């Protein structure tokens, strides 16, 4: 329990680099001057955070997310290796340092000492990359619990009574995470069990984001600013809370009596925000805090309207997105959409290695870190004095600026050398070049896109990255089995509404209509069938089809995949091969999908700190479409342990 507690106490998530040697190493940059500054900030935050207990959880989430991509996974990685600085800060906090921290190199220790102790990799003098050998295998449970606790602290105010709330069955699917999956949200019940730690945890929450991020001066300056803002907000929040305690649980005034009146009232955003929080509070403990004369639907409608107003969504979009989440999660989601995702670059393994590239960029003053254990080629850029899209390294094709989410479909596709692979919607080429890199420029890669203007960028990127095994063509994706077929693997990153990338393109909030969705899903369904038909099931190495979208709505994802399963009984869904992410829905709003949809993966901005994304992987086992006994029902792969029943009940909450 001791270690677990430690994990919860704001020990930040660091990022691991998987070296070619198979060792796990941690990268560290040394900025002595900043460290003291940072520590001072931590002290401040320690003092402040407890007073701001009522501070909106949203703010906290935002801070953490901005700093580490793939938070959930990062947390899991905690168990493996510690950042040196982290260890030291933990010690200054007066808490029991984790075993491993004691083993890790101390920050002041020289480079040579590091080598002596770790003795594995050659170190670079300028970059100060120190490597800690991975001594313990991943302790998934502890990491996960720590993470769960982190999350629970976020939600502890809101979801403390979730079990009382009646839960519709289809909603539960959202929470049906599997045990090995370090989903950030899955252990609310754990949080409840560990309630006694919450106090301690909360006091350290603030320090959390400092540890995991960079040590740059600018960074800290920014953090100070944010801190001040938080403080101000917290103050207001506190006053609010006081007011509310004065009314002593009387929440009757949250909902206005007449909706018609409401329309005429001037909209004060602060008021709206307050009301959002109030309603969220009520909904989290509906039985006790509700106004008996009001139904749950009243509250929900009000909340949706307020959210739409506060975050500037159309009511249609708000409805569509709100329905995907629980109340608390929806808030997190909408908040996450306001924050930009971290800048990620992908090393082009055709031209460079991640270590060399990192070295070259650090020499240019770029502050970066490996993106996480899940990718060997990703680097996260925190700060750069030069435009990251115009460095000589970029122009020489050593890396590609690419969202973390767009690594996933390619990783799932897992291209092999000497295969014939098709990328149906390739522009602007981030995924295509990744595929080519994994194929090591062998075999054949057909990059297709329907938009000729965007294909210029695709061709440019292919040439810049030194990809030599491609044919670029400009067909409508639906033309495909006719143009060329018999592919070993196909990636279809379908055109979509972009509800996963709202932070990149906020116009989605207002512009999309139900007509757009109808047209898009129709196109997606046609494309997915065309793609499946273009695959050669008899391929020795492949026969795989990956469908992905940067959207999180069910219409564009599960619905389309389910349609494909119905129309093409010669394919089955298999595990995507991605170790994190939520499972796909098997039923949603009265629609029931094939149970194998569980093996598809969803990614959300608020839980994984990457763009909202969806990945499904098919295996084609026959070239004839006719249905046979080996239907998809049989083909469901059970490579993962069953999710715990407790989790499902605890996590699922209505609305």
């Amino acid at each position: 329990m001791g270690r677990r507690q430690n994990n919860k106490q704001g020990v930040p998530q660091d990022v691991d680099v998987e070296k070619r040697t198979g060792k796990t190493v941690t990268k560290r940059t040394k900025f002595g001057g900043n460290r003291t500054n940072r520590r001072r900030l931590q002290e401040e935050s320690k003092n402040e955070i407890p007073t701001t207990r009522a501070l909106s959880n949203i703010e906290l989430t935002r801070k953490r997310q901005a700093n580490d991509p793939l938070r959930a996974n990062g947390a899991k990685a905690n168990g493996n290796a510690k950042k040196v600085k982290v260890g030291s800060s933990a010690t200054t906090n007066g808490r029991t340092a984790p075993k491993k921290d004691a083993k890790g190199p101390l920050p002041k220790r020289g480079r040579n000492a590091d080598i002596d102790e770790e003795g594995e990799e050659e170190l670079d003098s300028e970059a100060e990359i120190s490597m800690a050998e991975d001594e313990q295998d991943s302790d998934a449970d502890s990491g996960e619990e720590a993470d769960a606790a982190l999350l629970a602290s976020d939600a502890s105010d809101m979801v403390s009574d979730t079990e009382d709330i009646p839960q519709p069955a289809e909603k539960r699917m959202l929470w049906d995470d599997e045990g090995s999956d370090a989903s950030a949200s899955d252990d609310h019940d754990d949080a409840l069990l560990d309630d006694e730690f919450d106090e301690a945890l909360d006091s350290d929450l603030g320090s959390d984001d400092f540890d995991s991020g960079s040590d740059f001066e600018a960074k800290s300056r920014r953090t100070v600013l944010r801190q001040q803002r938080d403080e101000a907000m917290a103050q207001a929040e506190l006053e609010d809370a006081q007011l509310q305690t004065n009314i002593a649980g009387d929440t009757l005034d949250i909902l206005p009596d007449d909706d018609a009146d409401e329309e005429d009232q001037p909209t004060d955003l602060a008021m709206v925000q307050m009301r959002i929080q109030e309603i969220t509070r009520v909904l989290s403990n509906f039985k006790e805090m509700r106004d008996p004369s009001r139904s749950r639907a009243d509250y929900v409608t009000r909340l949706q309207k307020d959210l739409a107003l506060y975050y500037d969504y159309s009511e249609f979009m708000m409805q569509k997105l709100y329905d995907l989440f629980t109340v608390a999660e929806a808030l997190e989601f909408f908040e996450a959409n306001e924050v930009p995702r971290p800048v990620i670059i992908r090393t082009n393994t055709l031209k460079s290695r991640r270590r060399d590239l990192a070295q070259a960029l650090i020499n240019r003053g770029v502050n970066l870190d490996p993106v996480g254990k899940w990718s060997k080629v990703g680097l996260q850029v925190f700060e750069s004095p030069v435009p990251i899209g115009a460095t000589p390294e970029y122009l020489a094709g050593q890396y590609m600026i690419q969202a973390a989410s767009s690594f996933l479909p390619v990783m799932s596709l897992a291209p092999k050398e000497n295969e014939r692979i098709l990328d149906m919607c390739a522009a602007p080429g981030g995924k295509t070049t990744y595929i080519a890199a994994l194929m090591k420029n062998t075999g054949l890669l057909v990059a297709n896109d329907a938009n000729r203007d965007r294909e210029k960028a695709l061709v440019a990127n292919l040439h810049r990255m030194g990809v030599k095994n491609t044919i670029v063509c400009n067909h409508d994706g639906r033309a495909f089995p006719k143009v060329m077929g018999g592919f070993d693997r196909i990636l279809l990153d379908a055109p979509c509404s972009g509800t996963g990338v709202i932070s990149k393109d906020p116009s989605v909030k207002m512009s999309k209509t139900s007509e757009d969705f109808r047209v898009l899903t129709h196109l997606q369904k046609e494309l997915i069938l065309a793609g499946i038909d273009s695959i050669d099931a008899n391929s020795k190495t492949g026969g795989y089809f990956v469908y992905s979208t940067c959207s999180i709505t069910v219409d564009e994802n599960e619905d389309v995949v389910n349609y494909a399963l119905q129309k093409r009984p010669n394919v089955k869904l298999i595990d995507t091969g991605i170790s994190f992410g939520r499972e796909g829905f098997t039923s949603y709003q009265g629609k029931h999908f094939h149970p194998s949809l569980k093996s598809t993966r969803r990614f959300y901005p608020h839980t994984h700190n990457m763009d909202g994304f969806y990945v499904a992987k098919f295996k084609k086992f026959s070239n004839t479409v006719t249905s046979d006994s080996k239907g998809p029902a049989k083909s469901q792969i059970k490579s993962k342990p069953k999710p715990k029943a407790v989790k499902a009940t605890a996590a699922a909450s209505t609305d």
Partner: protein
Amino acid sequence: MRPLTEEETKILFFKLAKYVGKNLTYLVDRPDEPHCFRLHKERVYYVSEAIMRKSVNIARNQLLSLGTCFGKFTKTRKFRLHVTALDYLAQYAKYKVWIKPNGEMPFLYGNHIAKAHIGRITEDTPQYQGVVIYNMADVPIGFGMTARSTAELRKLDPTAVIVFHQADVGEYLRDENTLF
């Protein structure tokens, strides 16, 4: 898409030979996988035989690129090398020029290389010889043509142009619309 005529092949080889000399044989006669040159929309692509055969499936209007683009034939039937050929040129280049970090950005903006910016240069480089430009980290960033031989180099003042700029990787950003 079609094979090059003899005349076109000659023009292309003349141009390439300026940079890689006799090493051009390694491009034409590759031991690993047979490669060929193909002309498509006035652009010359260097592509493996297998991929070329597959690309026959795709209609002329729909085909945008295959393999690596080496450059294009101008309307006067001269051949213009594009920066996209840099990978192969760098692989087989006979003469190389390394430029210092402070000269990197000026070159990437399309300027000629002054003497002050040159870090290293292959010995005995003659005048008007095609050279591949590297930065000090040994990353190829473009190619050009020497304005002076190495023998003359010593006597010149630091601002004198030593290498004429022909193409650089900055064109990926600058000329994306015209390049492809």
